[in-house]
């Protein structure tokens, strides 16, 4: 696969322009048709605007840094992060939020996808309706639901009142606010999970179901023994994508509660923004590093575990 096969040794024009390529293996690859400088434009943009700040964050996280001065203080920011209850709460909320939304999107996404591939009436229309919120501005959705969830005048509580239920203060009750935002995030993101599952389901050959039916498997057994195992690649994608999204989420929280009431719905990303606004740049960066490590510690083992299971099958 390495060398173009159809190339006749002598006739291929080898332009001597491969000075970058030549550094690798001058004799073999002089003037490769795929020179390394092709990565330069993307590499430069990615290196300057993403990689360099990410690496720099490991230094800045160890400093007391504000508008006027910067001073190395070792791990004090991290110590403070784990000592301050409201900062800690951000960390706990992040984990809680990501696991709830990810689990709900996975389960609901699969169920809706199974429903929308079973040949029911208006299937295509339903797919579009479920998917559309994925494309809508998160801030728009956040502001919209903030009004719908208004404790006394919001449409949700008015509807509940009409059937005799006293609706709670969705966003004003500190023990409920995070879960209300999580519900909206599920509402917004379940369409993507459904879409991914529909793509996954379409790759399962009907033969499996036929064989299972012949063996006398019930609908329920077919779902657990055929659908769930065979749709695993889609499950991997949904779980990992929604976990990453949930751990990093900022805009929806900010539009709906700004971390409030108090600090009850703060997540790491909103803590990072608040500390930045307050001028604690070092502490904010430490929050960023914690988020970075948290995502790495969760996603990498999970991806490895999913892949291993896949090989085993």
């Amino acid at each position, binding site marked *: 696969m390495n060398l173009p096969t159809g190339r006749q040794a002598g006739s291929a024009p080898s332009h001597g322009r491969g000075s970058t390529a030549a550094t690798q293996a001058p004799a073999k690859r002089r003037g490769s048709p795929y020179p390394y400088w092709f990565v330069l*434009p993307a590499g430069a943009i990615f290196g300057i605007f993403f990689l360099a700040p990410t690496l720099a964050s490991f230094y800045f996280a160890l400093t007391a840094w504000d508008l006027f001065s910067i001073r190395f203080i070792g791990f004090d920011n991290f110590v403070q992060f784990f000592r301050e209850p409201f900062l800690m709460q951000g960390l706990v909320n992040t984990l809680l939020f990501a696991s709830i939304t990810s689990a709900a999107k996975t389960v609901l996404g699969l169920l809706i996808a199974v429903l929308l591939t079973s040949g029911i009436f208006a299937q295509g*229309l339903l797919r579009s309706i479920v998917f559309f919120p994925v494309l809508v*501005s998160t801030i728009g959705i956040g502001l919209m639901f903030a009004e719908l969830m208004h404790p006394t005048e919001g449409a949700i509580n008015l509807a509940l009142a009409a059937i005799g239920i006293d609706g709670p203060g969705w966003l004003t009750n500190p023990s409920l606010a995070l879960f209300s935002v999580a519900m909206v995030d599920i509402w917004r993101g379940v369409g993507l999970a459904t879409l991914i599952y529909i793509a996954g389901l379409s790759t399962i050959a009907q033969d499996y179901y036929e064989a299972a039916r012949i063996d006398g498997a019930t609908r329920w057994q077919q779902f657990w023994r055929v659908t769930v195992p065979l749709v*695993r690649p889609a499950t991997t994608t949904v779980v990992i994508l929604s976990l990453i999204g949930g751990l990093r989420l900022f805009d929806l929280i900010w539009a709906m509660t700004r971390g409030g009431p108090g600090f009850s719905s703060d997540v790491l990303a909103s803590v*990072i923004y608040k500390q930045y606004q307050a001028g604690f740049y070092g502490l904010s960066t430490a929050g960023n590093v914690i988020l970075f490590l948290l995502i790495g510690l969760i996603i990498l083992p999970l991806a490895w575990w999913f892949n291993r299971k*896949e090989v085993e099958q």
Partner: protein
Amino acid sequence: MKRRQYLIGALSLAVAFVVFVIPFIFVFLNAAKTAAESATLDFSWPREWRFWQNLVEVVQARDYMLLLAYFNSTVITVGAIALMVVSGAMVGYLLQRRRTPWNRIIYGFVLAGLIIPPAVVPTIWLLQQIGLFKSITGMIFIQCAYGLGFTVLLYRAFIATIPRDLDEAAIIDGAKPWQVFFKVILPLLKPVTVTVIVVQSITIFNDFTHPLYYLPGAENVTVQLTLYNFQSQFVSQMNLLFMNILLVTVPPLIVFVFFNRQIVAGMTSGAVKG
């Protein structure tokens, strides 16, 4: 179609309507009301339709800030995507065509770009050092850098379906490597390029977090930021806030209607392979 399937379909449609469509209808109705009427947040038919007046009023608010925001958002989106498409396709092409130990490292960076949350404060510091903080140019580069991982993965997968014979034929005809790429390969990548453009334009247009950090200031406002700023300004004029939400929802709706297939292809690209 069996009767049962009609029944389940109709039932699902009713549920989907209540859960997913009614919130948007609520926004639409309130966007057409007077300020006093929309303040009660009722889910009701407007007593007096003021749709057009509200639209004009939102567009004119704060010296036509919304128009400036649409302009800025468009410039950022177009600029970032142009950079992303060309530079991302080049990397995807190299990754797919030339198998070397370096590929693993490049691939690692691509995945890192997809997973790692950007370090915001150090990025602001860096942008200040090179004079791009609070500038549209800086925002274009930032959005390009954040979208490259996704772009490279899509291109790499698609280029695998283009036979190498094409490159070789061009080389034998005396084409230089960049000519092979720009004149032979890039035109063939049109289907996946459309997917990249559609998915990324929605992502960048809808992005709120990064403009909030890197583009403070009224002259650089983007569409999502207007919505956020208007929230505090329109507190007594809910009708205008809802109109603003509606105006921000329209571009993705249009894109969705025309490019449904490409969006689905782009967003499910990881599903089958994992």
